[in-house]
């Protein structure tokens, strides 16, 4: 197996792009595959370009990196125009609308949006305005994507969003959330808290709001740690950039810990911060980690969690896999469902997916 030399290739290159000067063609090849698997190619292109390392890339690798840069530029323009039509569609309803994740970073012009590709726009509206928003969006051309009755029920009853909507002409996907975590996960923060703390946007998209910095970080951490990690490296890349910006204000870290405690989400935050520091060298005060550790409540022993994160956060490409990575990915899959659903529902859902789903 060619695994060994490339295990940490992508992350090492993102952290220290100058290393690329000494790479063989084999390194470049694996770097391209891994950045593609993690959706970090345009970010990698930026990092390499910033230190002049693109010059040393073999032409075939440079071609892929430059094309990724081109797609990212177009993507940013497309997101802006999509936000414009979304604002036009929802403004008349007079309800608060939060932009989440990629859409928020983009509307803020934040460094975390540079080169970041995403397939869906994510927004959050108050649960009481969900039906009204859905109806308005359908009128404006965003039509429900899933028609299967099982999927419909899966989304409406067991998750924190309605079935994805797709625009009939532009084929862009929109996820409308009413809270940040699936209600079946057992942790039910009051969505009103997020609306209350939300920050307005300046400029063109002033109708929308975004989560306050602490909530934005916590949401990104939850998204990562309640999920299956296949976009884990990308999410941690976002978090690294968010934290290196927000973290410059001294009061931010104490706010963050207080907020996570209040929302009962200290554990995902602790995990995200620990992994961000391990992988990207994210600057985090020791005291913050100590405070979060004090409220940590995972039933699983630390060494198991460390093993799981180490493997499941590798790029989903065989060139980065070790002997137990596939097992770790299966565990991560089971874990993500375990965290999101009570056991009977989990058995029901997985049985459907295993035996009945076409």
């Amino acid at each position: 197996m060619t695994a060994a030399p490339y295990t940490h290739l992508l992350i090492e290159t993102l952290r220290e792009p100058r290393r690329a000067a000494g790479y063989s063609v084999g390194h470049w090849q694996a770097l391209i595959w891994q950045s593609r698997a993690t959706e970090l190619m345009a970010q990698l292109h930026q990092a390499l370009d910033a230190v002049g390392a693109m010059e040393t890339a073999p032409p075939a690798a440079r071609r892929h990196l430059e094309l990724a840069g081109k797609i990212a530029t177009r993507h940013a323009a497309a997101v802006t125009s999509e936000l414009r039509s979304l604002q036009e569609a929802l403004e008349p309803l007079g309800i608060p609308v939060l932009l989440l994740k990629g859409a928020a970073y983009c509307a803020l012009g934040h460094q975390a949006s540079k080169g970041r590709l995403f397939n869906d726009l994510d927004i959050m509206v108050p649960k009481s305005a969900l039906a009204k928003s859905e109806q308005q969006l359908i009128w404006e051309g965003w039509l429900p994507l899933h028609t299967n009755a099982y999927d419909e029920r899966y989304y409406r009853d067991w998750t924190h969003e309605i079935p994805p909507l797709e625009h009939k002409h532009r084929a862009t996907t929109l996820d409308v959330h009413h809270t940040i975590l699936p209600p079946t996960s057992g942790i039910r923060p009051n969505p009103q808290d997020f609306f209350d703390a939300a920050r307005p946007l300046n400029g063109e998209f002033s109708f929308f709001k975004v989560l306050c910095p602490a909530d934005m970080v916590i949401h990104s951490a939850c998204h990562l740690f309640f999920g299956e990690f296949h976009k884990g490296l990308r999410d941690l890349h976002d978090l690294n950039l968010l934290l290196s910006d927000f973290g410059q204000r001294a009061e931010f870290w104490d706010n963050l810990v207080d907020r996570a405690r209040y929302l009962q989400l200290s554990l995902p935050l602790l995990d995200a911060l620990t992994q961000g520091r391990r992988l990207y060298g994210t600057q985090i005060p020791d005291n913050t980690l100590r405070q979060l550790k004090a409220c940590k409540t995972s039933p699983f022993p630390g060494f198991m969690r460390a093993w799981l994160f180490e493997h499941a956060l590798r790029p989903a490409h065989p060139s980065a896999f070790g002997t137990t990575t596939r097992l770790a990915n299966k565990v991560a899959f089971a874990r993500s469902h375990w965290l999101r659903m009570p056991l009977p529902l989990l058995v029901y859902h997985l049985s459907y997916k295993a035996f009945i789903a076409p």
Partner: protein
Amino acid sequence: MRVAQLKFDELSSSLSGTGLLIPCGPFCIRVRSDLREFQREFYRLYADFPVLDADTYVDFEVGVRSPNPLRRYFRPQVIFTCDGRIPFKPLPLAQAFPTFEWGLNWTIYTHAHDYLVMHAGVVERGGRCLILAADPGSGKSTLSAALAQSGWRLLSDELALIGLVDGLVRPIARPVSLKNASIGVVRSLGPQVVIGSVCPGTAKGDIAHMRAPSPSVLAMSELAKPALLIFPKYGKESALRTTSKGKAHSLGELTRHTFNFAVLAEQGFDALGRLMDQVETYSIEYSSLDQVIPEVERLWERSK
């Protein structure tokens, strides 16, 4: 070295193990699959394809496999993977080969942004090519296959790759995907036609693939200059009708058939504009190959 020069067992162990390097349009891909059914079909339909040297730069690693061990035996399924990503939902195992072909098309049209990637068939003669652009079900693949069996070189039945810099079309020469009644129509074109197993009941009906003629595969590196653009429209009862199309209309129509028009933006618009200056454009309604092929030949002569 070509695929057909390998023994099946060699091919099988290569596909199940380190993988096989083959060209896929403007890319080199590494193909892996331990599915026997897929390996057989691949052996037959990619027979003339070159096996690239181990030190060729590999753009994509693709695979066709069971989603999980359970689904290998119980209601067996298949997925296509490309560099760790799974673009489509699992399909029944019997659709392994079509899944591979759809996966390769996806790989090309989501990554080859140094080309205009157009949903069109392309055939060539004397260095100049004919582009057949149409919606699915218009007979584009059948017509491409028939022309490829009657003296034209096949570049692709599905994707026209038009260079953004040189405006030339790059061949793909992969198997031609045929649906339903057109499988029999193409089979009856002669004893030289090689068609793989028929795969019933896919989302598009019955599907089978025709092996690209050997000369087309061997000439895979020869680019072609666009000369004629036809919008074919098959209809069971249609009388033959040819209409000359204006440049503006055709450009508008082609934006619909170009997968990456939104990604390329101005660059794509300029490339389409240049294409319009190079080609004469017609639409043809027809109901049989006997009717349409002489008509295509007539327009081809006129375009010289």
